[in-house]
């Protein structure tokens, strides 16, 4: 199905199509990811973006930092807007062109959930990229359905009591041809996945863990380290699902306890305050263990 050699898939020229001059915070995982995605996709790409941090820090009139066409409409409809762009290209017999719909976890998994499900089910040739920073960061760190167990947000001040919604598997169950997860510490893996996805016809879903220093309560220099620990603990499994089969799982080299990941972040600080870790830490470790078993990490 994918005819390009793996060498080609890893080769990405740095073009800064998502250029400097945007207004993201230092250490923003989403800004880093957006740059990697734009360069991997190349000039022949239309970026449809949902309302959220990415849109706000990259698209103020009159000076957006995109060097590829950019289309923003609303918070919850980017999948349908991208579907419309794709339909127009088909009807007008234009293209081929890469159409990428992008949004944060709120616009993807919560308010835009119906829209993305529709896009998957109808089979549009669109790559959807979810920049997952595990809460509504643009509005000031409120809980989303991607907020992990135990995490403090401004609307879960005592810590979140529910588990994270598993959108990659929900996407895969729509029967779409390509689903993958990635993290912003591994440029090569992330960009290869963008390039791979764009070679496949149909709806594709790429879920990128994008730490938010402000919302997660860590300094900007820890973004990469936190991503590595998210993988090493098993809390964020990195894999591809091609035509329903899990492939290319990123194996854990040296397994770490979840405490190492949690202790770096202010949002989990309350779990360790009273000396011994709270019971949530054990529950979070159990989630990591389940992931390791399920994906054979």
């Amino acid at each position, binding site marked *: 199905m994918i005819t390009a050699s793996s060498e080609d898939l890893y080769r990405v020229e740095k073009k800064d199509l998502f250029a400097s001059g945007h207004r993201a915070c230092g250490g923003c995982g989403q800004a880093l990811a957006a740059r990697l995605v734009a360069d991997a996709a190349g000039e022949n790409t239309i970026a449809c973006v949902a309302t959220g941090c990415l849109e706000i820090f990259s698209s103020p*009139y009159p000076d957006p930092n995109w*060097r590829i*066409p950019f289309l*923003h409409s*609303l918070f919850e409809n980017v999948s*349908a807007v991208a579907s419309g762009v794709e339909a*127009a290209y088909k009807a007008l017999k234009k293209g081929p062109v890469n159409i990428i719909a992008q949004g944060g976890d709120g616009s993807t998994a919560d308010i835009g959930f119906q829209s993305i499900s529709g896009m998957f089910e109808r089979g549009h040739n669109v790559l959807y990229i979810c920049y997952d920073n595990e809460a509504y960061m643009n509005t000031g760190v409120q809980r989303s359905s991607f907020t992990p167990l135990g995490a403090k947000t401004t609307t879960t001040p005592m810590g979140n009591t529910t588990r994270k919604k598993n959108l990659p598997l929900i996407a895969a169950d729509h029967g779409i041809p390509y689903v993958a997860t990635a993290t912003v510490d591994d440029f090569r893996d992330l960009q290869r996945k963008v390039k791979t996805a764009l070679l496949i016809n149909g709806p594709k879903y790429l879920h990128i863990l994008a730490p938010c220093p402000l919302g997660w309560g860590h300094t900007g220099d820890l973004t990469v380290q936190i991503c590595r620990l998210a993988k090493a603990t098993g809390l964020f499994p990195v894999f591809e699902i091609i035509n329903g089969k899990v492939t290319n799982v990123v194996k854990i080299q040296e397994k770490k306890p979840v405490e190492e990941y949690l202790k770096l972040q202010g949002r989990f600080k309350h779990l360790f305050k009273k000396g011994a870790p709270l019971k949530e830490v054990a529950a979070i470790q159990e989630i990591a263990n389940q992931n390791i078993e399920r994906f054979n990490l």
Partner: protein
Amino acid sequence: MLKYLEGSHGVSQVVAMCRPNVISAYPITPQTHIVEDLARLVGEGELEAEFINVESEFSAASVVLGASAAGARAYTTTTSQGLLLMNEVIYCIAGMRLPIVLTCANRAISAPLNIWNDHQDSMTVRDAGWIQLHAEDNQEAADLHMQAFKIAEQTFLPVMVCMDGFILTHAFEPVDIPEQKEVDAFLPPFKPQNIVDPRWPRGIGLYADPRFYMEVRYILHRALEKSEKVIKQVSAEFAKAFGRESGGLLKTYKIEDADLVIITMGSVAGTIKDLIDQLEDEGKKVGLLQICSYRPFPRKEVYRVLKDKTNLLVIEKSISLGRGGILGSDVRWSFPRTEKKDRKISCFVSGLGGRNISISDLRYAVARVEKEPVELEFLGLNPEIIAKRDM
């Protein structure tokens, strides 16, 4: 060619002849026959277009938004709850200056659930920046779609063609359906301006901070005001090409020497004209002003037509709850405050949720306002139902 067909089919046939590139819609009564017909025309290859079946009206509006931003001629249709669900996108489409055409098969709003006709749905989005044109009959409903694409694409404003649900959409009438070549001669291919295309990378839908937002909204308001000229001009071009009057800003009937003028929109104009003829036989001079372009509201034209008239009766199918008639407010606002004339403007909210507006109801309204002005009255209420509930 004159064909005896359902209002919805007249519309779908003309929409298809307008050659939209992308159609997206979600089924809702009484709009369904329009989409079913278009889906069939696309499916059978008669219309070369992408037909996108979506999971909600919200996505239908979003799909045509994306398609229009990518340079396609795009069409959708809905009504009632569907239009309300689209609301956020409706505003966005106008703000982004996307020339989309939407048919609103006018229907009441829940609660209580009601599938029958009134104008509350399109009224709810009257401030969104869309042109809203109201059809009187099935011929005009069909004709207005040809005009709508032309107006939209000249002004870069979206156009909503409003036709009364069931009363028009499901009524069979003879409708003159044009030849494809006539439509092509009237409606040139769409030449989009700002589109997403990698050959000319640009941002569409950037956000505007307080330094810019007001100017953008002002320009949109001015564009609506200026579109009055285009609506008139396209209606005149239509009359020239097809030999019949359709659309425009407003229409009048026996208004010249009328002592009382009824003002309304949509299909009830037909009943009112019948009443006017009857009253004429009885020696009463009553005229009709029919608003076709509800947005932009042709304030100056309304004033020009009504400036010598002192007794006005508004019959409308919507209400601003807690305030009163909406069309009535627009009519009242059309007269300069400095005017010294003793003018009586009465407002009757009527036909809500498909309640029939009969000639005798209208006769009653005319008799009432001949005696004294009526600030607001619901026409044809059943007092027995109210007595049990109205605390």
